[in-house]
C-alpha cells in the first residue's frame, strides 16, 4: 500500500498546472518588490525594537547599578562618619545648645566628624552607648515629672537627666566633645562632678536661651510626639542594632496562585486555560532610608503553570464493520449451529480532546518603595512597586481561533511576555532569630500592566498571588 502512496506523490509532483495570465512577471513584479520593501522594513523595525528595548534595559540596569554603586561608595567612603554623625547628633540634640548648631547645619557637623577621622570601632562604641542613653531618655519622656510646669522646664530637666546618664561613659562624651568643638566645653568641665554638671548645663541653657530656646523647644516637641514611634526607640536591642544597618538581603521560596486574566471579544477565542499553583522564588535586596522607609530591588523567578483543556466536536463519520456475526441459529432437531453474518454500519461521534500543560517562566526585576514597622521581635513591611519581565520562556501550546499554536512559535505573533511591566503590592512580616538573621513570610499581589496578547481582540493580563517564606540577612 505504501507504494500506492508513493504513486500518489509522483502524480502530484509531476503535475504541472498552466499558469494563469495574471501571474506573469510583468504583473507580479511590482507586488513582489513592494512586498520585499515591506518585509525589509518590518524586519528592520523588529531589529530596531529589539535594540531599543535592549538599550532601555541597559540604561535601566546602569541606573540601578549606579544607585547601588553610589550607596556602596558612600558607605565605604566614610563607614564611621554616618554612625559617628548619628551619635554626635543624638548627643548634641539632647543637650540643646549643641543641638542647635548640629540641626541648623548637619552637613557641617558631618564634615567635622569626617575631618576628625574617628576610627570605626570608636565610633561604633560611641554609637552603642548613645543608643542606650536614648532608650533611657525614652523612658524619661514616658514618665514626665509632674513638677515640671513648662516645656522649657521640661527641656532643661530632660537635658539634665540625659547629661547625667551620658556622663557614665567618658569615652562617649569625649568623642562627642571633640567632634563638636568648643560647644561642649561646658560639658567637659562638668564631667568631674555630677552637681557641677547639672549647674553647668543649666547655666548653659539659660545663658543661650536667646539662641537655643526656639529650636530646642521645637526639637523637644517633635521628640515627644514622634520619637517613641521611631524604630530606634523600640524596646528590643536586637531590633535596634539591626535598624542601624541599611542593607538587608532576603531569599524567599513559595507558591503562586495565578490566572491568565483572559478577556476576549469573540466567543471562539474563549480561554480554555486555567492557572495552576506554581513555584516562585524571590531574591530581595532592601536599602533602608530614614523613618522606616526603604527601597528594594532584586530578582523574582516565576514558573507559572497552566492547564489547557479543550474539547471540540469533529465531523461524525460512519465505519462499516464487515462480516460480523449478527445472529446464531441452532437447529433444535439436528443441533446444528448456523451463524448469520453481515455488515454493520456504526456511526462514530468523534471528538478532539486536547489536554496539556503550559509553562510560562519569567525572570522579573522588581523595584519598590515601602516602609517597615517594628513591634518587639516582629517587623512588618509594606511595599508598592513595579517589575519588569526581563527574560521569559514559554512552553506548550496556545489555542487561538480554534487552532493550536506552539507557544514558542506563537511568540511575536500571538503572545509576547518579555519586557512587559507589572505592578505589585507586597506585605511581609519577619521574626528576628538573632542580630543578623530573620525568618520572614511575605504575600505579594502582582498584575501585568501590559497585554501579553498580540491580538487586539484578546487581552491576557495575568495576575498572581505569591505566598512565600524565607530568610532575611542583615548586612553590615
Amino acid at each position: 500500500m505504501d507504494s500506492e502512496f508513493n504513486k500518489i506523490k509522483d502524480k502530484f509532483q509531476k503535475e504541472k498546472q498552466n499558469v494563469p495570465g495574471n501571474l506573469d512577471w510583468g504583473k507580479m513584479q511590482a507586488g513582489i518588490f513592494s512586498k520585499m520593501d515591506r518585509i525589509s522594513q518590518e524586519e528592520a523595525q523588529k531589529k530596531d525594537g529589539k535594540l531599543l528595548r535592549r538599550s532601555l534595559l541597559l540604561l535601566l540596569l546602569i541606573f540601578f547599578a549606579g544607585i547601588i554603586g553610589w550607596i556602596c561608595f558612600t558607605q565605604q567612603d566614610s563607614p564611621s562618619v554616618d554612625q559617628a554623625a548619628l551619635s554626635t547628633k543624638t548627643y548634641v540634640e539632647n543637650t540643646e545648645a549643641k543641638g542647635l548648631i548640629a540641626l541648623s547645619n548637619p552637613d557641617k557637623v558631618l564634615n567635622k566628624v569626617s575631618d576628625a577621622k574617628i576610627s570605626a570601632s570608636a565610633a561604633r562604641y560611641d554609637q552603642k552607648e548613645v543608643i542606650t542613653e536614648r532608650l533611657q531618655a525614652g523612658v524619661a519622656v514616658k514618665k514626665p515629672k509632674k513638677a515640671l510646669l513648662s516645656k522649657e522646664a521640661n527641656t532643661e530637666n530632660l537635658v539634665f537627666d540625659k547629661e547625667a546618664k551620658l556622663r557614665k561613659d567618658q569615652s562617649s562624651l569625649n568623642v562627642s566633645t571633640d567632634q563638636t568643638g568648643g560647644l561642649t566645653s561646658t560639658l567637659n568641665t562638668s564631667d568631674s562632678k555630677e552637681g557641677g554638671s547639672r549647674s553647668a548645663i543649666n547655666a548653659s541653657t539659660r545663658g543661650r536661651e536667646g539662641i537655643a530656646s526656639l529650636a530646642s523647644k521645637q526639637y523637644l516637641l517633635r521628640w515627644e510626639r514622634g520619637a517613641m514611634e521611631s524604630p530606634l526607640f523600640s524596646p528590643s536591642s536586637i531590633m535596634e542594632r539591626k535598624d542601624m544597618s541599611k542593607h538587608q538581603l532576603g531569599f524567599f521560596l513559595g507558591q503562586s496562585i495565578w490566572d491568565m486574566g483572559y478577556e476576549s471579544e469573540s466567543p471562539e477565542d474563549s480561554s480554555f486555560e486555567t492557572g495552576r499553583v506554581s513555584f516562585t522564588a524571590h531574591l530581595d535586596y532592601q536599602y533602608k532610608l530614614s523613618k522606616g522607609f526603604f527601597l528594594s530591588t532584586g530578582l523574582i523567578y516565576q514558573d507559572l503553570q497552566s492547564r489547557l483543556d479543550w474539547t471540540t466536536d469533529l465531523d461524525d463519520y460512519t465505519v462499516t464493520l464487515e462480516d460480523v456475526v449478527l445472529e446464531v441459529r441452532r437447529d433444535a432437531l439436528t443441533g446444528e449451529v448456523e451463524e448469520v453474518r453481515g455488515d454493520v454500519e456504526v456511526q462514530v461521534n468523534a471528538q478532539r480532546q486536547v489536554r496539556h500543560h503550559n509553562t510560562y517562566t519569567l525572570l522579573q526585576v522588581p523595584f519598590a518603595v515601602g516602609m517597615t514597622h517594628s513591634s518587639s521581635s516582629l517587623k512588618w513591611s509594606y511595599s508598592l512597586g513595579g517589575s519588569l519581565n526581563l527574560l521569559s520562556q514559554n512552553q506548550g501550546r496556545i489555542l487561538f481561533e480554534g487552532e493550536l499554536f506552539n507557544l514558542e512559535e506563537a511568540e511575536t505573533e500571538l503572545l509576547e511576555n518579555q519586557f512587559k511591566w507589572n505592578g505589585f503590592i507586597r506585605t511581609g512580616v519577619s521574626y528576628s532569630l538573632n542580630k543578623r538573621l530573620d525568618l520572614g513570610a511575605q504575600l505579594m499581589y502582582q498584575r501585568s500592566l501590559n497585554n501579553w496578547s498580540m491580538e487586539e481582540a484578546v487581552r491576557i493580563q495575568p495576575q498572581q498571588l505569591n505566598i512565600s517564606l524565607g530568610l532575611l540577612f542583615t548586612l553590615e
Partner: protein
Amino acid sequence: VINTSIIKAVERRDEKACQALYEQSIAYVYTVTSRYISNETDIPDIIQESYARLFLNIASFDPTRGAFKSWLRRIVINQCFQHYRQGKSPRLHVALDNAPPIADKELGLHELSKEEIESLLSKMPDGYQEVFMLVIIDEFKHSEVAQLLGISVEASRSQLSRAKKWIRKHLTNTTKTIVNGF
C-alpha cells in the same frame, strides 16, 4: 534545475535574474500553492509574498542541504500556512461540492485520477489531510510538520497513520460503499 549563477545574481538583487528565476519556477510554485489554497483570488498575493521572501533570503539557501526546489516548496507552503493563520483563506480544501464522484471501478489508489484523489482527501477528517499532504505529497519530515502545525511529532505521526488507515478503509471497501458512503 536552477542555475547557481542565477541564484548569485538574485542575491545581488539583479532584476533580470529575479525575472529569470521567477519564470523558471512559477509553474511549480503555482501548482504547490493551488494544492493548499482553494481560493484562486488569494493565490497571487501568496505567490508575491513567497517570492519576496525567496529573493530576500536567497543568500541563506545552502545547496548542500537540499535541492532548490525543496527549499522553494517549503517557503511557499510556509506562506500558505501563514495565510491560514491570518484567517485570509480557509484551511486546505473544504468539502469540494463539485468534485467528481469516485469512479465506479475496482479501486487501486494509483488508478484514481488526481481530481479523484483530491476529492477523497477533501473528505478526510480535520487534521488528517494536512499531515497527509505535507508528509506524503510534499515530503516534509514529521518534525517540520509538527513545527508548521503546532503539534507534537508524535501527533503528526499518529495523524498520518490514521490518515493512511482511513484511505485504506475506504479503498478496500467496494466501490459502491465508497460512492454511496460519501
